[in-house]
């Protein structure tokens, strides 16, 4: 009788969920583990299926396959897998947050309101945190004993960005305070206002050089303001053990195709098959994106019903 592909008995699998400590397997991989497979398994399976005499590739070192498997996971993490992470941080008086260690790119930043709603903060692009050399009274740079310019701890630009602005009054307050008092002098005073720059929720600026996110006064001034950084990582940060790095099974075939294409493209002897592998990798990646997007016609119909549309499913 063939061995079962599932790893645990039913009782062992549900033991943790049911607080049955005596039956929790020591190597328990977590509820829903069957939906994913480890990178180590993918590498082993790839060697079995693709490497050898009379196969796609004759001889490839394992570390090279592991390299492309990890590169594949990185690329997939950026735009294919549902790998967004979020970290909730209480904003201190400084109005600054350090980037997480496994940060690769920001997805969005929100501020949490008193009723638990996450309001979107917009990035502010018209500021920066330039290097600020210290200058003497004549405007000349000052230098240390090694001849390097002395630098200020922070730039004036970012300090002024974070400082409370005199004109930081939101649109509704501005309108009401004037309209209710029959003061119509506000007409044309805010002509040409850019909505992206006039959010009352607040803005932020990510300084990738120093690895710090700066928030403006409308966020940092709020007591107990809690911001949430939604970001993407590369899928590899959790462990250096490929047995503990997982890929959704819906993306497994695309991983094989990605590894095969990249190993083949650096081996000219593979010849004309490279273009086939490239097309295969591209098609399988597309299929994976469709699979993982998880569209369900019933859910879509329900959403559209809310829009007063009639749709059959």
């Amino acid at each position, binding site marked *: 009788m063939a061995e079962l592909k599932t790893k645990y008995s039913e009782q062992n699998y549900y033991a943790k969920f049911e607080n049955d400590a005596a039956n929790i397997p020591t190597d328990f991989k977590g509820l829903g583990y069957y939906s994913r497979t480890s990178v180590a398994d993918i590498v082993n399976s790839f060697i079995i299926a693709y490497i050898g005499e009379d196969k796609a590739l004759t001889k490839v070192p394992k570390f*090279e396959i*592991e390299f492309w498997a990890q590169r594949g996971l990185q690329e997939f993490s950026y735009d294919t897998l549902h790998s967004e992470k979020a970290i909730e941080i209480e904003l201190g008086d400084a109005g600054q947050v350090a980037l997480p260690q496994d940060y690769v790119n920001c997805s969005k930043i929100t501020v949490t309101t008193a009723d638990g709603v996450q309001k979107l903060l917009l990035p502010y692009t018209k500021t920066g945190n330039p290097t600020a050399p210290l200058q003497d009274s004549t405007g000349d740079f000052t230098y240390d004993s090694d001849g390097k310019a002395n630098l200020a701890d922070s730039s004036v630009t970012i300090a002024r960005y974070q400082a409370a602005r005199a004109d930081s009054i939101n649109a509704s307050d501005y309108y009401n305070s004037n309209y209710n008092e029959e003061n119509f002098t506000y007409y044309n005073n805010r002509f040409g206002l850019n909505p992206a720059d006039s959010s009352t929720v607040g803005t932020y600026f990510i300084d990738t050089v120093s690895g710090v996110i700066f928030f403006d006064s409308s966020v940092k001034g709020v007591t107990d303001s809690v911001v949430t950084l939604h970001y993407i990582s590369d899928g590899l940060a959790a462990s250096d*053990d490929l047995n503990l790095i997982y890929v959704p099974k819906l993306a497994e075939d695309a991983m094989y195709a990605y590894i095969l294409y990249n190993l083949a493209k650096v081996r000219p002897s593979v010849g004309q098959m490279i273009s086939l592998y490239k097309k295969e990798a591209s098609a399988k990646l597309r299929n994976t994106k469709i699979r993982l997007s998880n569209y369900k016609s019933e859910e879509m119909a329900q959403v559209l019903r809310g829009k007063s549309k009639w749709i059959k499913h």
Partner: protein
Amino acid sequence: MVSIDNVYKTVLTILNKEKRGYITPREFNDYARQAQLEIFESYFSGVNRSLSNNSDYSDTKRNVEEKISFLENEATIATGSFTNASGATTSDYFAYPSDFYRLSVVSTTTGDQFIEEISNKKFLFVNKSPFTKPSITSPVYLTHENGLVIKPTGIPNVSVSYVRKPSEPQWVGGTANGQIIVNTSGVGFKNFELHPSEETELVAKILTFAGVTLRAPDLVQATAQKESQIIQSEQ
């Protein structure tokens, strides 16, 4: 296994029939050792020359691999250090077993992780890449004098699959009532550690060596032809 007594008696029979003289057990043992080594070493180049097919018994490549498998072995070797003649010490060193001849596969004893071979030059680059840096679950080995160096540090034991050296064959015996009698329980007695199909080639090779010693060029020529015939029939 090939019976050394059978080979010895066949060799003597052929030599006596031709009235070419007699080779002593000591001479025979020297020829036997040399013949076994030559045949054994020829397996490793023979694998590449052999053709493979889908048959059960005449897949020549598989047949050569089967002959090698007679001497395949496994051992667990432990970490240590190696000091060369000038006093330089190498750490993370794993010495080969004493009967080691050729290496097949190296794996960790816990978890059965395959350990990849890598050259010294390649290791310098692989060790610096965050993707390929060797880890406990993806180790690599470098070949070293009479052993291996396994990276990363911290692996206490590894399992090696290898081909061992065949033991030196030795015929032990004497004569009684004019008959040559083997003493299989005699000190040092050892049969050939080769596949039984090698018996004829062993006889031919030993006769060639004997022919050189006995200064019989026609014997050397005849046995060399026979040996070549055997080798060709196996390919």
